[in-house]
């Protein structure tokens, strides 16, 4: 194939590897086709990159935020009668969803939904995200992380929820994480 005079020859060991017949699994083609077709009919994950960047890159904002965690909410925030943590209005909160026990190999993407009209996503950089009630991010954005960061802000008093649903590549729900919040107090 390569007839250069000055080129050294293909080592014999590599020639031996040519005859190793490798085949992917029988399901690979179906998997690719299905995912390609579904990506053509729903918003592409790549198009959500800016949103993913917002979620992943929240480290820069962290200094200005109150950091809370699922596992220690009660230690940080005075509970109400119903034991829901209370959050001030008009102030961004970084919520770190604990995903250490999730099998990342199974997850293709996560869908973060906000329950209630009184809560919105918060981002200095991506203002438009405030209008969304649900955003979807690819697993590769958080597959190496122990926590999934979500920044939210309360706009009216009352209860709200942050729900994260994790899906596999067949769009089947794998697991869910939910957090109930209670916004209270004057607007800041």
């Amino acid at each position: 194939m390569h007839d250069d005079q000055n080129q050294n020859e293909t080592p014999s060991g590599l020639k031996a590897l040519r005859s190793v017949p490798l085949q992917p699994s029988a399901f690979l083609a179906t998997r690719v086709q299905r995912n390609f077709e579904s990506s053509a009919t729903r918003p592409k994950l790549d198009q959500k990159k800016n949103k993913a960047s917002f979620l992943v890159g929240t480290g820069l904002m962290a200094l200005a935020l109150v950091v809370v965690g699922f596992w220690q909410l009660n230690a940080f925030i005075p509970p109400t009668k119903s034991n829901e943590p209370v959050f001030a209005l008009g102030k961004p909160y970084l919520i770190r969803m604990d995903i250490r026990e999730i099998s990342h190999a199974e997850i293709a993407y996560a869908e973060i939904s906000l329950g209630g009209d009184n809560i919105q996503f918060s981002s200095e950089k991506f203002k438009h995200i405030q209008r969304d009630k649900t955003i979807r991010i690819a697993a590769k954005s958080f597959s190496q992380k122990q926590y999934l960061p979500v920044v939210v802000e309360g706009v009216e008093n009352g209860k709200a929820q942050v729900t994260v649903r994790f899906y596999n590549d067949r769009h089947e729900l794998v697991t869910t994480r939910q957090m109930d919040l209670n916004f209270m107090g004057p607007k800041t």
Partner: protein
Amino acid sequence: MSVEKINWISVIERVLRNERPAVTELIQAAQTPLFTFCFHLCKNKQLAEDLTHDALLKSLSSLSQLQNQESYLPWAKKIARHLFLDYLKASENSKVHLQFDELPESADFTQDPISVEQIHASRTLQLLDEEDRTLLILIDIQEMSYEDAAVTLDHPIGTIKSKLSRARDKFSVLYNDNGTKSLADSSIRQELELKKKISN
């Protein structure tokens, strides 16, 4: 489906016209050469499948950006290689390291038995750095042309030739290192014999 027989230009044009059978045709034709490339690159069947899947999806989604449609396969391999490099980088950052030195199980290849020479060559290949390994996989194992390898690696053809020559020398030194080879061969033989005994 044979890779040689497929008319990439015609298939890609039909894919761009949203013809579903053309998508199937393209995936069927590209998956084996892409998987073979990925497997030799990472020597891990599951990872190779994931890389192949992602590279196929990514290439299909951005097919309209491909200027020379005849170069689909080298271009898709370029995408797969970048995905692999991203994976390596992410693994490094999270201190998760790939285990390259595991013996390739026969199930990782096919049902066919594999020879000591093939196992030794496969192990030697993993000792090279990623770019040298990629070059040897493309040109010496998959018999790709210099022009196509230049597309995958994004180098001029002259650079490909000189890098290939050096990569072959490095491979040969490692492969023919008598002490290492005989040691490796004897351990591989022992493992193969053990497997044979277990399967019997």
